[in-house]
């Protein structure tokens, strides 16, 4: 399920064989790409036309795109999704970064367990997790007794913390890999030794030495979490919270054009986010490569 763009391609692989490519292979490739383009761009293009086409008077109008802010209820659900995304990112980073630093620097033996724990949400489909949360929240100790108040606070409709807390679990596989890749690319142990030798305290060390080189990785993890929360539907709909995607499906049912416009926009926003992640990764790669070149020269 988690398979993200392999950013920073080496670009060195197969093309050696392409030089003496026979024309029929080239035709085959073009046909493949053309068919794929029709299948993938087709529905997008048609849906876009559907969303701007004025059926009553004919012609084209961008009302669905320009008027999104004035649709009643839409902004509420969108704001809720944004709040959840912010909460998710904060909890995720506060929880994951110190733990991963600790494992990397002091408890390397724990690393396989940590990795397994972070990837485990992949084997439990979101709908199953939702069923589990449903069972836990409906169980005796959480419906009456001292824990009941906490449980009901977590399920507050204005900001359902339970969703943010569970979204952290859903994003774990993505964000673990993003941060892990960042940590592998720098020599944390040496940085720590150097900073400690120069007399840095642990808080100083963390803020001024460890976090700056991990900036990109943390940003990636944050963006991925943001994209996931913005599009998340399963947990929200089963636990009955009207987040952005749930609103598109339920309240948007009266206006097919609006639904389509919102769908295109949310795909677009996610795509832009991932492209930005790719650019960050690319620029960092370029920089470290130029440093290496300077070293060898």
């Amino acid at each position, binding site marked *: 399920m988690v398979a993200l763009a392999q950013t920073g391609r080496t670009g060195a692989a197969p093309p050696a064989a392409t030089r003496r490519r026979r024309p029929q292979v080239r035709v085959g490739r073009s046909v493949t790409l053309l068919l794929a383009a029709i299948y993938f761009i087709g529905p997008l293009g048609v849906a876009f036309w559907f969303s701007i086409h004025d059926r009553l008077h004919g012609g084209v109008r961008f009302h669905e795109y320009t008027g999104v802010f004035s649709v009643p209820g839409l902004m509420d659900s969108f704001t809720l999704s944004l709040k959840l995304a912010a909460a998710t990112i904060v909890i995720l980073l506060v929880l994951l970064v110190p733990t991963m630093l600790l494992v990397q620097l002091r408890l390397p033996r724990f690393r396989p367990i940590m990795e397994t724990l972070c990837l485990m949400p992949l084997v439990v489909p979101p709908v199953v997790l939702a069923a589990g949360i449903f069972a836990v929240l409906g*169980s005796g100790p959480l419906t009456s007794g001292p824990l009941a108040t906490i449980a009901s606070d977590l399920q507050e409709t204005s900001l359902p913390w339970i969703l943010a807390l569970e979204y952290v679990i859903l994003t774990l596989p993505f964000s673990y890999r993003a941060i892990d890749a960042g940590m592998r690319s720098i020599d944390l142990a040496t940085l720590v030794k150097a900073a400690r030798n120069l007399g840095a305290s642990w808080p100083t060390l963390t803020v001024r030495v460890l976090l700056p080189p991990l900036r990109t990785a943390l940003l990636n993890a944050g963006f991925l979490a943001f994209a996931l929360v913005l599009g998340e539907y399963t947990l929200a709909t089963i636990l009955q919270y009207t987040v952005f995607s749930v609103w598109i499906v339920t309240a948007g049912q009266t206006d097919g054009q609006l639904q389509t416009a919102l769908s295109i926009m949310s795909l677009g926003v996610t795509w832009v986010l991932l492209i930005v992640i790719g650019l960050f990764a690319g620029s960092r790669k370029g920089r470290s490569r130029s440093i290496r070149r300077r070293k060898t020269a």
Partner: protein
Amino acid sequence: MQPMVDGSGLDTDPTRVGEVMEGSEVQPAADRNRWTSSQRRRRVPVAWLGLIPFLGYVGVFFLLPTGAVVWSAFRSSGSAGAPSSFTLANIRDALQGVYRTATINSIELSLLSAVIAVVLGVPLAWAVVTSKGRTFPGIVSTASAVLANFGGVPLAFLFIATVGTSGLLTTTLADHLHVNLKSDLGFDLYSFSGLVLVYLYFLIPLMVLVITPALEGLKPQWQEAAQNLGASRWQYWRLVAAPILAPSILGSLLLLFCSAFSAFATADALTSGAFAIVPLKIHAVLSGNVLAGQENLGYALALLMIVVVLPLTIAYQLLQQRTSKWLR
């Protein structure tokens, strides 16, 4: 280690002086060792304590709900008169009637769309991998990541706008060519055939993403070596590339199956929860759309999903390890 000899004695043996020197040098070092090792012994538990927040979090918000699913799957739904007890009835009911149909539908849908996605995804990935430049593969990989991981609800509406009841393509075909998608072509977006079409929209990109590293790992030298030995292009693909890619392709098939099997958002948005597949049935049961006394049936269905997905994911990981042996 030599016992400490104090140098103030009458000892003049030169060899012993060396020993004394050595001894007196080693001693503080040993002391330091003892100090650091005792400190390390003291530190280890402290460092382990730092793992508590993370372990606690995963325990409460992941392992606890998952455990609750497994537990509830074997509990009868308690009422005022009869407290809940251990039972296999949920599991039995989950494999009967409409739930049996849902399970079969789910497996057929996932298997068919996964196989089609693998068959179509490999040539597409190859076409992308071998294309010139870096921009195009970059765009393809980010777009694939969006569709494969974050598609969900929007995908349903793209297809509703295109081939839904009042979709543009549907109406255009009906108005101009007098072809009805449903009655003439047997295509219904809100049913099995439609779900396959929409699932392929995120499964093919997923296939492109997971198979691309394997295709990039095929070294041109292997092809050159095969050619030098007189192999035709077909022989190279059949005898060299196929065996190397086989575990990777099989692994991808498992991953795609799991992805299709677990998918909820697209199907729910497309069919308003009406089509009988396992994830939608779980939702239906949880929202009370179930016979009295069968309230815990949803957890049995959820357990069924874990039972299907867990071994396949493990097999996928093993196959990935096997592949990575070749593709370093």
